[in-house]
């Protein structure tokens, strides 16, 4: 780890101002991704601006047909939240399946979403549950937020303040855990809305993606059978020594069907 200056922000505006002032500043949320990156010397920011003291960024609320989770809410809090479990049980389950207990108590939704790790779980929830990512500057629709591998629509200096998830009529998340890291090899969110079904896949590709063929088939008939034969192409997927692209494509197909089975059983 290289040396850096440490700041503790007390509100979002203050954090934004600091970010602008310093040379090469980085926001610090749970530190579960950022700190290992610094320790391995893969990044050397001049300043870290810790959001842990910003009380505005913590908590969960239900607003109309939306579940609003503020950026600094740790995964463990989402997993244990009665409000979330009641409104969108699939979201609570997703949060409860991230990493291990230590990671769930430190890692935050804001940090996870900003980081846009291709194997992270939350992106499947953001896109599958048609969420809005709210920042200190604007609101960004889920479909516009994730641009690619570790790439989001966030502008330099932009701070995520909350994520607003739309309540589906039903939704289910299934994850195939990576044997080493525990991240998603494939994470699939199937959610049904009056406006249509959304199928979002994380882990398999360089960034979260929707499977429109499955969505169309499920719109017509919400049964496991209707998507049992719909495959995604392995060409755009990722592979590593544990799971090839071909295997990931296979798991997407099987897990999508199983998610629908779980919802229709």
């Amino acid at each position: 780890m290289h040396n850096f200056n440490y700041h503790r922000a007390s509100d979002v505006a203050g954090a934004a101002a600091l970010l602008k002032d310093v040379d090469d500043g980085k926001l610090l949320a749970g530190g579960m991704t950022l700190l290992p990156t610094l320790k391995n010397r893969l990044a050397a920011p001049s300043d870290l601006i810790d959001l842990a003291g910003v009380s505005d960024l913590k908590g969960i609320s239900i607003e109309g047909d939306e579940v609003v989770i503020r950026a600094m809410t740790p995964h463990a809090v989402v997993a244990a939240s009665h409000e979330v479990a009641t409104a969108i049980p699939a979201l609570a389950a997703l949060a409860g399946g991230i990493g291990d207990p230590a990671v769930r108590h430190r890692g935050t939704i804001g940090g996870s979403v900003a980081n846009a790790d291709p194997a992270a779980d939350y992106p499947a929830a953001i896109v599958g549950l048609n969420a809005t990512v709210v920042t200190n500057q604007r609101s960004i629709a889920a479909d516009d937020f994730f641009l690619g591998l570790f790439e989001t629509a966030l502008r330099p200096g932009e701070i995520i303040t909350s994520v607003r998830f739309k309540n589906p009529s039903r939704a289910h998340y299934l994850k195939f855990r990576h044997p080493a890291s525990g991240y998603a090899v494939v994470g699939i969110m199937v959610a049904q809305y009056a406006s249509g079904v959304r199928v979002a896949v994380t882990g398999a590709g360089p960034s979260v993606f929707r499977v429109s063929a499955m969505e169309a088939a499920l719109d017509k008939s919400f049964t496991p059978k209707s998507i049992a034969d719909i495959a995604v192409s392995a060409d755009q997927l990722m592979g590593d020594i544990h799971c090839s692209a071909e295997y990931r494509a296979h798991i997407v197909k099987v897990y999508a069907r199983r998610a629908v089975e779980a919802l229709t059983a």
Partner: protein
Amino acid sequence: MGEFAIGQPVSRFEDPRLLRGGGRYVDDMSLPHMAFGHVVRSPHPHARILKIDTRRARQAPGVIAVLTGEDWLTSGFGDLPTATGKKKRDGSPMYRPKFPAMTVDKARYVGDPVAFVVANTALEAQDAAELVEVDYDPLPAITDTAHAHEDGAPQVYDDCANNICFVYQEGDKDKTDVAIAAADRVIKRRFVISRVTAATMETRGSIGHYDKAADRYTCYTTLQRALNFREELAETLRIPESKLRIVAGDIGGSFGMKSGVFNEVGLVLLGSKVTGRPVKWVATRSESFIADAHGRDNVTEAELALDKNGKFTGLRVRTLYNAGSYTQPGSDSGASSNVGTLAGVYMTPAVHVDVTGVLTNTNPMRPFRGNGRPEAAFVIERMVDIAADEIGMDPAELRRINMIPPSAMPFQTGLSFNYDCGEFEKVLDEALAMIDYKGFEARRAEARKRGKLRGIGMSYTIEKAAAPGYEGAEVRFDRTGSITLIAGSVTQGQGHETVFKQIVADRLGIHPDEIHYLQGDTDQVFLGEGTGGSRTSALGGSAVTSATEKVVDKARKIAAHMMQVDDVEYADGVFTSRKTNRSLSMKEVAKSATNPRNVPKDLEIGLNATAAYHTTRQNFPNGCHIVEVEIDEETGVATLDKYIVVDDVGVVLNPLLLKGQIVGGIAQGVGQMMMEEIRFDPDSGQILTGSFMDYAMPHAEIFPHIDIKSMPVPTKTNLLGVKGAGEAGCVGAIPAVANALVDALTHLGVRDVAMPATPERIWRVIEDAKRGQTA
């Protein structure tokens, strides 16, 4: 000492301290004025070093010294000791590459040390290390075991043709060739046993301290064998052992990996000598992946010959063993010391093994829990299952008809092992009853209804423990009648303190709270080889026992003198005599023993004893593992559903610790079989599994309850009747799990699953089988 007696499930005395952060690992230790070292390592698997420029690094803030291999050479220190004793196929001596603490001419694996930066803080050392400029000329690299000996493969050493380091053979070649040629049936199979890393909780580390005034070196370090470590290091530094003190703290796991002297130990001592300050180095986790010694890694072809009744008539095994980039004493033992395990618990009259050790551009090797035992056990126990499948016999039955009966003991196998005792069939029957073997098909059918493929697999393995050697122990009573107990063996987490205190409490009637346990400091320990190869209960335990016997002998004479009688009995820590109603406890005798009045004239005063125990006969722990797995046919995900073990590890000193050893061993075996693997990119030679994000460790959640039962057949090869238990779990687990996985898939036409059997690999063999291509 009823509750602490031998055989009681005494919970570990060391745990409250270790669990509450009271441990003293290398990184917990600080010496006054201590500086910190950072190793500059080769990023290339194979490269010529053209130039090392340390100027910029030397000028960096906080830097005290930047050392290279040239500095090592001019300091007068020598190379690290290397493996010796084996031969090549033509009878000439094995190839012995030099093992420098820092390489000068060539780097031979990713992680090979090339420079060492010493600074005021660890951070400054790390910063400056980035400024060391090394000019490399990359060379083609070979990491793959199977191809290293082929013509045209990159040469790790220019003068070592085809990278062949040594050839090791055991058994009767001619007899085996004849048996195989004449057999009714020969089963042939190739196995690749993957390379793994120990991933110890405490990474390697050392603090070196050269005391110029006393001209003496002290090294606080992670190790398994304090006195052997001192011997090897003294040889490296070219100093007498009296000028070197080695101190081990608590050691957070080793499994063989820390059993040799490693480069960085030399570097901190050189650093201290040059700077005049103590120097600490502790590996980061990332550094451990690239710089620790690895284990296993072989490619084996086996042929098992059977007669028409299913009796084994011959076994022929040829192995390519990856010897890594450098050798060390013991680093080649995985290729030789335990190939005897291949004979198994069977009567097979003719066995021959031929192992070729090949050098590669990979990390040096060390023993890893079992050191050749698990590899060999895997081969024979897979072969038995494959044979059972091919001849259509139940695998338990095939094992039974080939087992060595107790009446044949002692039994000389077709390889080097000579078994003293064992009741294999009895243990097998108990295991079959425990898992309800007969009821399995019903469980398989029930699983099928849930869409799961259920399989059952067993192994019956036997291995050598406590190879011929020695161990020391010392019992010192002080004047209040409490004890300092000093052992030659060193724990890396096994619980020596607990078991040794139990033995002393049992034999001398002193409460464990009044026993202070010491180990791992060469200034305190007079004799001992350390811990490894499942030897400590048998050898260390016997040494402690022998020391207590000497104490009792002397105390008996003192007690008789004090009670003024000539016949004294001793039981449960108390001396009595039929001639008087006076009695004396061991503690009372000990308290009185420094007063010359209480001691017979012909005896020295005081009550203490040292014991050196040695044996020329190893023992043979054995046991049966049976496991049931379920496989998700669509995804290839396998889960362990049921796991039982019946073992014979001789007399059980502490069932709680025994179970801990077996369970931990099983976890490592399951890890090897199902997920762990060190992988190198075949083209670049770079390690692909350099962190826990890529190197998969087994987590507690994947294990079912493991049911363990002991059926001891005491051995006469040591004072306590114990057999080794440290490696047994790992040895039995790998083949048992493999057999269960294959059994679940046999009906599809699957005949094997490569190690590690990841979900994708299992899915692929299922898919291939369905397409009619057997793996």
